[in-house]
């Protein structure tokens, strides 16, 4: 798992963070949170967050190995 030590480990997590933050900015920009509207989380966001958490879990596993 040494591949996760460098940029190949942290860059995907940073990309996911950027995605999540961009989505929040987009929501505020388009002001979608109007009364009665039901917002659904996109599958892409969930999957991306899951991948980032998996990478970090593997990273901590490597650190303690």
């Amino acid at each position, binding site marked *: 798992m040494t591949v996760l030590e460098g940029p190949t480990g942290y860059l995907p997590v*940073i990309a996911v963070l950027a995605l999540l*933050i961009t989505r929040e900015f987009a929501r505020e920009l388009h002001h979608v949170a109007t009364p009665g509207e039901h*917002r659904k989380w996109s599958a892409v966001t969930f999957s991306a967050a899951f991948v980032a958490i998996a990478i970090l879990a593997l990273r901590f596993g490597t650190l303690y190995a």
Partner: protein
Amino acid sequence: MADPEVVSRSCGAWLGRWSAVSAWRSTEAALRGGVLTHADLTVAILTIIGVVVWWESSIAVPLLAMTDIGLASVLPPGTWVGILLVSAAFVVALKSGRTPGIVLSIVATVLVLHGLGVVAEPEMRFDVAWRHIGIADYFRTRGQVDPELDAYQNWPAFFAFAAFVWEATGLRDLPAVLAWTPVVYNLLYLLPLIAIGHRIVGDRMLVWLAAWLFTVSNWIGQDYFSPQGWYVFIYLVVLAVLLSWFGEYRPGLPDSGRSHVASELEGPQVGTTNQRLALLAVVLVLTATIVSGHQLTPYALTVTTAAAVAVGWCRLRTLPISLMLATLLWTGYAAAAYVAGHPDTFSQLGSILSIFEQTVEKRLQGSPGHELIVRLRLLETAALWALAAIGVFRLVRAGHRRLALSLASVALSCFLLMALQSYGGEALMRIAFFALAFTALLVAVALIGPPGALVRFRELVSVILVGVLLLAAFPLTRYGNERMDWYTSDEVAGVDAMYRVAPAGSVLTSVTGGLPWRSKGYDDYDYRVLVDGNPISSAPGIGREGTVDMAAPDLAKLAEQVESRMARRPGQRSFLIVSRSQAADLDLLGPFPAGAQDRLIAAVTASTYSSWWGCMKTDMEAQARDVRQVEQPVVLRPLQIIALYRTSVLLSVLAVTVAVLVIADVQSSFRSVLTFLFLMIAPGLSLLDICGLARGWLGVALVVATSTSLATLVAMAQLYLGIWSPTGTVVVLALVTVAGQAVAVRGRRHADSAASSSANQRYGACS
């Protein structure tokens, strides 16, 4: 010819009479005009007399007579009288409902409670605060981060900021200024707390009472010069912004089946799109400093934000996930050196019982006096939580079920941190601190009833009763460890002398670490302690770890252990420093019977090794002087958002002046004060002013948080990139300030011209 002295005296007397008469006349006029009420006058008189009595009494506390229950054992009656008068002023102000009186009395309460240690003691208290100065000094002088050194280097944001401010202001006597940190921090905490209170309960009386309760029940003592103290302020600001601006647009979430915990809040502030985007950006900047500045606070922010999302108080649903990812990202990569060297970081994950045992049972040790203090602290915390539960009950009974459950959920969310790790036995204490703002709101509800309820005599009596109990407990719970936490001027001078004598690279050994040391030469010496928290070892060659057996019956063996701990390389020198505060530390916390340090001194003096170590005993009983020098506080003037273009001109002139002073390296107190004010206020005010966000209590908190966070991020980037330049950071911040105001002025001109053209159109249509 008239004697000049007589003339001057009679002129002085006449001026005194004239000023007294004119003050009385203006007061009378204000009373007649309704500007001032009799309640205001009572509050002002009680506060002024209280503070003066408190100050005069507190500067003459016989500190050397202190017992194991701390400062309370030596407080003169005048200090108690001063505290009671200021508290009486708050009750009068609360009853009158007048904001100026309430604010004045709360500020005075912060001063008399959290400034007590500062005024009563001759030097900055607490060894960790001194160590933190040393870490800032390390960054200031080295201009780089060394992650292999310790945890501080892996979460350096706060120290990068402190190092930058130190350099930029050109301050010389840092401890004298930083001694006032508890007062400044506790005043800052109140700004976001008031904003949160107004947003959640919307009842002025409840909010002000909660602010006062927060002040009198904050015994936790994390508000010294420390990252955790600072980031609790940023944590509260982030929560205040989220609750005030990013709440759900609708009150409940019936379709998701969570209506029972959904908020009863009115709609959040909507503002303009630009305002919301700017605030979101500010939240990200603030959280970036929290993530890179402290180990525990990001987790607290994550769980509290998640709770706010769950109860419908925050619509930024991915924010808790982003926070968690950012925290783990920093821990796993930027702080990898620390984490790899500490495999126990996450080893306690989920072991709640073991963590609870470490945070409660293991703290109940030491001398009988110290145990009493620990029990009092636990009792006070439990009592506050019980009152908070009553607050929840009163809200439910009054029909505010959703509000009750939501507030309780957010307050209790911090308890999830118990599943993380014991945090050196401090987990429960930190949780109480993170939850205190919400606990205080619930306690306020318990005392005077739900929002909108009429405050009758009965409620006021309950406030007074609980208030008196909390006030009586405060000096005990807050300053209970003071016997070991305060330092005499001679102790500080002793440590200074040690640094002058000891060449860089020497071994410096202290008995317990309860010493005002490491504020300089943080990485230049080999620091060791004899009682290091590890189990007691009986081996003569104890090495660098393990607690030296101070109770060993054989003094020669004790001396051998000390020699082993102080072992030096050829050419290296080794010093042992012994002081009053360390003896107090040993007596209070153990693990040896009282008088352990005297045995150590006897062993060292009688040993054959005394020829090569310098034993510097600062015997305070012999040298103590009653004269205490108390530095004047650096008082921040209240932030005033003044007229439109005047603000822009003032900020720009301030930015340019500070940049010139720093570039020219002008050494004066004028530069220190001006630069400090600029760094605390200007960049944030300039940027927030563009969107009209620098308003109200939250506006003031946001200005300070944004200014300091921007400086932190620039300074930290310089440290990591190896381009440390405090002057460069000041120039960057000055440019940000000027550019921000240029944009703000442009925006206002557009708005003005749009308004006038709209008016012209209307006028044309009418005519």
